[in-house]
């Protein structure tokens, strides 16, 4: 298929990173951003974004408030909190470590 399912947990990281990179954004914007970055190689039901957003908000990593969208419609805008920024940093490092290990493992010559 060539499209990757989103691993549980990685969606959180993606949302945090997106908000970090582009500032306050509504759910639709976040979804489009992730899709654009993934160049359509990601199979994401955009709806699943909303439970994730709620979860992140409950953990105080992001906060949300009503605002006006580009064409002046009311939309919920999410932004990163300081706690969220720290979390993103931790998660990023963690991800990179795991990725490195997995990569090394996969590249190692196979044998008995």
């Amino acid at each position, binding site marked *: 298929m060539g499209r990757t399912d989103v691993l549980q947990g990685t969606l959180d990281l993606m949302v945090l990173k997106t908000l970090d990179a582009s500032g306050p954004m509504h*759910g639709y914007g976040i979804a489009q951003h992730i899709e654009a970055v993934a160049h359509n190689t990601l199979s994401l*039901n*955009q*709806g699943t974004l909303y*439970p994730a957003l709620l979860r992140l908000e*409950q*953990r105080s990593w992001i906060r949300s408030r009503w605002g006006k969208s580009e064409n002046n419609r009311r*939309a919920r805008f999410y932004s990163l909190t300081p706690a969220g920024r720290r979390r993103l940093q931790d998660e990023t490092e963690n991800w990179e470590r795991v990725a490195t290990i997995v990569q090394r493992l996969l590249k190692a010559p196979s044998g008995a």
Partner: protein
Amino acid sequence: MTRVRQLLARLRGVLGQKQLDERLDEEVAFHLDKLTERFVREGMSQHDARAAARRTFGRVDAVKETYRHQRGIPVIETLIRDARYAVRSLVRSPMFTFTALGSLTLGIGANSAIFSVINTALLRPLPYPEPERLVQVVRQFEDWDGWTMDRQRFQAVQENSTVFSSLAALASPTGLNLVTGNEAEYLTALPVSYEYFEVIGVAPTLGRTFLPEEDVAGGADVVVLSYDVWTRVMNGDPSVIGQTATLSEVPHTIVGVMPADFQAIPNTDLWFPLRPATNGQGGGYNYSVVGRLTPNVALPQAQAEMEAIARGVNEVDPGEMSDGEALGARSYTTLITGNLRAPLFILLGAVGLVLLIACANVANLMLARAINREREMAVRVALGASRRRLIGQLLTESVILSTIAGVVGLVLAGWAAPLLLALSPAASPWREVSLDVTVVAVTFGAAGLTGVLFGLVPAMTVSGSALAALRDDGTRSSGSGRVSWLRQILITFEIAVAVVLLVGATLLIKSFVNLRSVELGFEPDNVLTAQMSLTGERYTDPTTVHQHYSTGIDRLERVPGVEAAAVVSGLPVEFGLNLPIEILSSPENAGSRSRQTDYRYVTPDYFSVMGMDLVSGRPFDQRDAAGTQPVAIVNEEFARAYLDAAPPVGQRIRIVGSWGKPEGMEVVGVVGNMQEQGLGGRSIAIVYVPVVQAEPNAIATTHYYFPISWVIRIRPTAQGVSDQVREALRVLDPRTPVSRVRTMNEIISSSLSDQRFQTVILSLFSLVAVVLAAAGIYGIMAYTVSSRQREFGIRIALGATSPRIIGSVLRHGLMIGAVGAVLGLVGAFALGRTLDAFVFGISPTDPNTMITVGLALLVIAAGSGILPAVRALRRDPVRTLRTE
């Protein structure tokens, strides 16, 4: 932190569900619209774009579901689900539910009943302002306290203490006759020094209390009424202040009325000034001294000052204090509630043990039940339930059980607590028990704890073995090692606790029997008593009083059924006037003032009516008249303490001051000790004087502070004598009412009310405990035996005989019983100390009691296996083997 924040956010989620729902709806709508817009921009038709947007978004309802689930608190939802499931499964097995609920309700109910009494009687302070500042001054000896003081000591404390903002003395309650029109009523009156009302901190609702100048010899006759007397006798007329009431012949000016909610300790109808004197009443230990501490003064400070004052008195006047005597300060609250405190806490301990037994029982039931459900558990594990979920679900079940038991227990307690208080001694000023927030909280606390206690172990055990059961065929798992061990431990524990309780109850019952059969020193059966107050001028002259008594005795003896009658100024087991005495025949002792004796005047036949034998000498008779040689009879304690140098009869003694004849009295006889101040108490010295020879001053003082008693020996078969006695005494002097006619045995019984309370209650709880424990033991034994049926079958098939198998069951029971009994005896031995103050004539570690109780439990434990074993053996072994 994050977790807490998340929990709070979720809590908000539970509360603000609708708001979040609307927010999500709006966000979803926005998202779908934007997607549709995009797809239209990319060239789709509106319709197709909409469909594509839905596809990209995913299923809206699924999103909402996830969102909702996450929004709330799954724990709570799980809990509700578990609770519903638990209730269903409890309803499905009514036998189990009823048995468990019965055990627990009994346990929890008993606990909250006792606790509510404790809550009322001990934890709630005295009904006076700042009761923690109230202190009683006592004569302090090495191992006991004298509650009463004489005038000298009261004065020493009055003059030298700095820790009290006010200090008062009161005597023991007496009786006064209130005459209104043709009616006369006997009222309880308390003599108090004028500072008394300041000390307790309660002001009269009407008028004033006493003035210092009214509280001295010769002061105006004034009286303060209780609210009850004021409303009942004076019809609540506010103009009574300043009016006179005739109390025992003497007109008294009514100066005040106490408030309706004022609870007097002890119960009192009216108060009159004590008028402390250094002689007579004030010469003996007849005062209780109560003080209110200055704010910010603590009890130890007061204690230190009292000890210093006692040292001061000893330095100034070395003969004044007895050997080893000091003064001390005791918390008034503790004194008032003191005789309830220890028994109530012992009871709380006892009901705590009962609850533990109930817990052990229910834990066992749960265990057996859980084992039967092992397959169900295993299936749930296989379907993905975590161990925590299983434990949670089993715990929910047990907590629901214990909560229901808590509710029912609370209802039971509300019904039982007033009964308990009614059984308890009257010393407590609190007449009603209420189930307040504290009691409810403690009950549910106990219930919750209980639920976890009996639920956790079975839950953990069973959930742990659930997977193992799945691997097996699931039918033989009940014998699994860990569970069976647990069961042995529970049963051993139950036996041990039951032994502790039974030992305690047996000791108290034996003590009670000992107390009842204590050598009273007299013959209380078939003796009626009637008290009356003779306060006033009419009855102070010895010849008049003697004449009055003679006439009365004549009338009484003419009542059918009456054998003989006499008069005494103070009954055995009750208080009498205490006076200082000197021994004239022993010159080296003549000057000492520290010798105190109880003083009682009697009519000549008193000793024969009471069935008292003289140890030596002669009783009073016609020889002892007004003009002849003054005589006295002393009791053995008096002779032991003061007359040990020579044979008592013939020695001469004198009451110090104007209350005794200047020439003294000759001891003509010695009587045995009677139990004078409560059964099992210390014996006190007593001197008896024929009323005709008593000094007028001594008679007046006695009458002022104590009611006198008629004692009447009746024929055992006599019927309805009380009413005729009452009538005869009414005719004798219509203005002097009789308080109440009681049998001597009733008086003795009421002096035993403390002990009866402890004995009855503790025996009751022990009985409950033993029944619970026996039921539990039997249940476990039956279960164990039935789970060994397969083994029995095999053994019989292999040629074992029934007796051998029963023998093995018996051995098993004996072993468990022995371990439990030994553990219990060790516990009972260790706890014996706490019962020290409550046992009488028996050691708290009495070996006979211990061994008997231990053996009894051993027999129960061993025997309870036999019936199930016999039943098991009656089954056809072949069938047993087949079904397994």
